[in-house]
Every structure is written in structure tokens, then in C-alpha cells.
């Protein structure tokens, strides 16, 4: 929150109408959700025309605004003075959440949770941006509560399917460890963890309902690729599946960055870096990987790795991944937060198909269809080539991931490279 409130728009700016820009690329469009109007003959005429249009056609109000503006009020010779509000100061939901991080507004005046449907999705996105102001203290009360988080920044994790697989693994781990899962950031359009990729929110990645999505038009009415993996849905599903854990199953990725969490007994202060990657049979897999994006500071924490530990456990006979977790990490149970720098491919999930199957079924997880990189933001369009924002996934990079996926879900790999072009919903179940 800004501590220095001041006026950013005024009825004395000389405009009849100042309105939010709903555009995401070069094109601009009117957003009816935030607008400042002077009561003048022109605005009254404009609204009369818009209302008439909504009544005489099937257009809803926002389309009618744009229609009326383009056909009756946009041309010269009319004294209606209006302008779009600055997209960086008054960002719409796409600009706020789906632009590459470097191009997002750094100091918005207002934020608008549009370009996403559903009440719970909006709330979750507000939480992710730390604009949700009314959570009760219990939401942040971590006394006696245990957390786990993981990195989604692994170079081998690119596609939505891979991110989903990782998420399922993490959920399973959280379930086994009886810990609240703090979600990492997910990547919608970037296929590799580069600085400029499009980070997205949970909802942008997944849809759970049967929403009829077609991403064919510039307007979001036709572009509802953002469906919800919403907390309420998850909680409903998990309540039955995990009766002892459902109520605290996960938190948004911004949870640890929330100012509320700077308290003395924050779990960040008691974080343990748990590197399960060394549980593997494959000695080549031990590499340096980025730590999770969180307020967590690796320098201040202790860490454990398990070099060769798995092999020694296996001396007593076959074990599954959950037993590895249980036996190796359980001694560190007292740490409030586990941070896993790498999960993919090494913790390939428990050999507990029943749980995984039920989890998938309960969550009705699907990747959102036909996600494409959006047009470049207006201000940068001329300086950067479009290729910078487009996902680049050379097939030659795939083998490492393929090997990993083959253990858990072969069919996901096959569809991964088609993700960009297919217009069908890819079901993971």
C-alpha cells in the first residue's frame, strides 16, 4: 500500500470519460470496471447509446461500450473527450499477472482482478499479489504448523504437464509429511526458467471445471483460457481425501513474502533445505539448481542432503519413495519449513497409485487449453522482437525430461510438445 496517497486522476483533467484499458497487446479496448465520468451532455448521450445497444442487441455492456465508441463516438467532429487510463498505473488483470515480471506495473494505483473468472480465483490472485486484506489471523497463524515448498525453477521442467506432475508429487509429499504446501510460481508461456518468462498464477495454469474454452478472439469473452484451480474446489476435493489435512493443504506462493510473515517465529526462520536429489541412483543428476523463489534465504539456513542414503536403505529390501522420505527426512520433523530445491525426477512420487489416482480424479486436473504467448505490451512492442516472448522449446532439449517422465507418466511427454498448437483440452487423468 502506498503511504503517500495523491490524486492520479481527476474530474478536472479535461476529459468527459477516463476509462481503464482492457487491452493486453497493441490494441486497446474499454474496460467498464473502472471509469471516471463527468456528467456532461456528451457522456449522458454516450451512456444512453450504450444502454440502448445492450437492450437492442445481445451485446453485454463492455462490448457495447466498445461498439458505441468505435461507431458513434470515436470519430472526429464530435466533442466527446475521453482517454484510456495508463495501463501501468491502472492495470487490468492480464497486465498485472500475465505480463513478464519485468514489464508488470511496479506501482499501480489500482489493480483489477479481471481476465480471470470465478470468485475464488479472484480471491486467490489477490492473495498472490498481497492485495487480499481481510484474511483472518488464523490464515497466517503458523504456531505448530509445518510447511513444505519446492522449486519450480528446474531447467528440465518446461511444459505444463511437467509442472503438473511436479505439483502432484509435491501434494503427495505434503500429504505424507502432513505439511502445508506453499506453492511455487508456475510458468504459463515460458518453457524454461529464464528471467523474462511469463510467470503465472495457479489459476492460469489449470482449469478444473468443464468450462467451454476457446481462445480464438482478442477479447476475453472469447479468450477464457484462464480457468480455476481454485482453493475452494481443491479444499472440497481434499476434505474427503485427506480429512486430517484438507483445511490447511496449501498456501499461495506469496505467502512467505507477505509482510505478516516477518514475525519472529515465522517458518522462514526455521527453514531446512532438503535436497532429495541425492537420493537418486543416478550420480549425474547431482547438479546445482536454483533455490525456490521465496523470501527464504539459503545462506541463513541449515541443509541436509542424502548422498547414497537411498542405496543403504535398499540394503534391507525394496522400498518406495515415501519410505525414503519417511526414513530420511523424519528426523528433521521439527523444522517448520522444508525447502526442496529439486523434486522433479528424483522424488517421482510414491508408488502409491491409488492415492495419486484419487488425487487426480478429485482435483479434475486439466491443463488449460491452447495457451499462447500474448501479444507484447504496448510500450515494448517496437523495441523487442516477438520471439522474445514466444515459447521456444527445441525438441532436442527433451530427452532428459523424457527419461524422467517415462517412469511416471509416459503419455504426458508425448503430448508435451504439442501443447502449443493443440486446441483440445489435454486430460492428464
Amino acid at each position, binding site marked *: *500500500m*502506498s503511504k*503517500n*496517497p*495523491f*490524486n*492520479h*486522476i*481527476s*474530474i478536472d483533467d479535461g476529459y468527459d470519460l477516463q476509462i481503464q484499458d482492457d487491452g493486453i497487446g497493441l490494441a486497446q479496448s474499454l474496460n*467498464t*470496471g*473502472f*471509469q*471516471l*465520468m*463527468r*456528467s456532461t451532455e456528451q*457522456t*449522458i448521450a454516450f*451512456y*444512453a447509446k*450504450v*444502454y440502448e445497444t*445492450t*437492450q437492442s442487441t*445481445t451485446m*453485454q*455492456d*463492455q462490448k*457495447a461500450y466498445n461498439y458505441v465508441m468505435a461507431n458513434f463516438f470515436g470519430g472526429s467532429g464530435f466533442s466527446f473527450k475521453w482517454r484510456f487510463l495508463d495501463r501501468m498505473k491502472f492495470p487490468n488483470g492480464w497486465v498485472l499477472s500475465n505480463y513478464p515480471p519485468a514489464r508488470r506495473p511496479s*506501482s*499501480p*494505483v*489500482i*489493480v*483489477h*482482478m*479481471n481476465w480471470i*473468472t*470465478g*470468485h*475464488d480465483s*479472484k*480471491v486467490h490472485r*489477490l492473495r498472490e499479489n498481497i*492485495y*487480499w*486484506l*481481510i484474511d483472518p489471523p488464523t490464515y497466517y497463524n503458523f504456531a505448530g504448523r509445518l510447511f513444505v515448498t519446492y522449486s519450480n525453477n528446474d531447467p528440465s521442467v518446461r511444459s505444463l504437464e511437467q509442472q503438473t506432475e511436479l505439483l502432484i508429487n509435491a501434494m503427495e509429499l505434503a500429504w505424507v509429511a502432513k505439511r502445508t504446501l506453499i506453492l511455487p510460481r508456475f510458468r504459463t508461456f515460458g518453457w524454461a526458467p529464464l528471467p523474462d518468462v511469463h510467470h503465472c498464477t495457479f489459476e492460469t495454469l489449470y482449469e478444473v471445471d468443464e468450462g467451454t474454452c476457446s481462445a480464438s478472439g482478442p477479447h476475453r*469473452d472469447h479468450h*477464457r483460457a484462464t480457468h*480455476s484451480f*481454485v482453493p*475452494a474446489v481443491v479444499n472440497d476435493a481434499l476434505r474427503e481425501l485427506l480429512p486430517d489435512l484438507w483445511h490447511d493443504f496449501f498456501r499461495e506462493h506469496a505467502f512467505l513474502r507477505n509482510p505478516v510473515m516477518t514475525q519472529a517465529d515465522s517458518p522462514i526462520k526455521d527453514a531446512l533445505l532438503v535436497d532429495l536429489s541425492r537420493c537418486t541412483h543416478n550420480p549425474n543428476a547431482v547438479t546445482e539448481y536454483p533455490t525456490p523463489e521465496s523470501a527464504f534465504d539459503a545462506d541463513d539456513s541449515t541443509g541436509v542432503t542424502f548422498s547414497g542414503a537411498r542405496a543403504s536403505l535398499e540394503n534391507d529390501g525394496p522400498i518406495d519413495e515415501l519410505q525414503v522420505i519417511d526414513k530420511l527426512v523424519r528426523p528433521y520433523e521439527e523444522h517448520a519449513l522444508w525447502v526442496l530445491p529439486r523434486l522433479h525426477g528424483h522424488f517421482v512420487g510414491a508408488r502409491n497409485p491409488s492415492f495419486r489416482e484419487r488425487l487426480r480424479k478429485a482435483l479434475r486436473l486439466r491443463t488449460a487449453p491452447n495457451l499462447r504467448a500474448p501479444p507484447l505490451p504496448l510500450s515494448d512492442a517496437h523495441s523487442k522482437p516477438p520471439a522474445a516472448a514466444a515459447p521456444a522449446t527445441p525438441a532436442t532439449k527433451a530427452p532428459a525430461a523424457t527419461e524422467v517422465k517415462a517412469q511416471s507418466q509416459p503419455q504426458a511427454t508425448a503430448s508435451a510438445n504439442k501443447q502449443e498448437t493443440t486446441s483440445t483440452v489435454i486430460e492428464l487423468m
Partner: protein
Amino acid sequence: MDLCANWLASVRFHKIENFVVIALDQQAFELLKNDSVPAFFHPRFSTDAEKQSYLEGSYKQLVNLKTFYMYQILSRGFHVLLSDNDIVFVKVCAGATVTSVAAALQFCRSY
């Protein structure tokens, strides 16, 4: 309704007082009234509490009410700053009247 509460929290954080929330159903209006929120409700220009879904007929009626209300308010000579309630005021915007269309009140029941 909690989106509206969040919107109110952000508005009140900036000590903005000159606003009115337009409730689009009776239940929302009662809740706002009980919370001493300046609110307006007219049963004739409201929506039924049936399930609302984006782009379906009743949602269209609902958002068209927004235009209707704006027209009425402007016609009476008021300058208006209109804000949906899935907006958060990060900074203070203007010294104009702030109006929230309580559309999300419907969403609360439908999602």
C-alpha cells in the same frame, strides 16, 4: 461478498468516505446495511439470486444494470468514479464519488 469487503478495506484504508455501494440483490443489501456500509438497492433494478455465470443471460442483465445505473446517475448531474469490486485501491484516485457495482455478490453464490 468477501470481494466487496476487500474492496471496502482498501477504500477505507485511504479514508475515502464519499462512496455508495450498489447492491444488486436484497441479501447483499442487507449484509451491507448491517455493516453500516452506504448502500443502495432498488428491487426493480436488481437481479434474482439464481446462479449467475459469466456470459449467460442473467449475467448480461446484471452488467447491463451497471450501464443503467450510470446513465441514471450522470443524468442527475453527478460526476462518477465507477469501480467494480474486484478492484483494489492501492493509491487514492480522485475526489469523486466512488461507486461499486456489487456484481461479485452474485459470484459468491455461483462459484
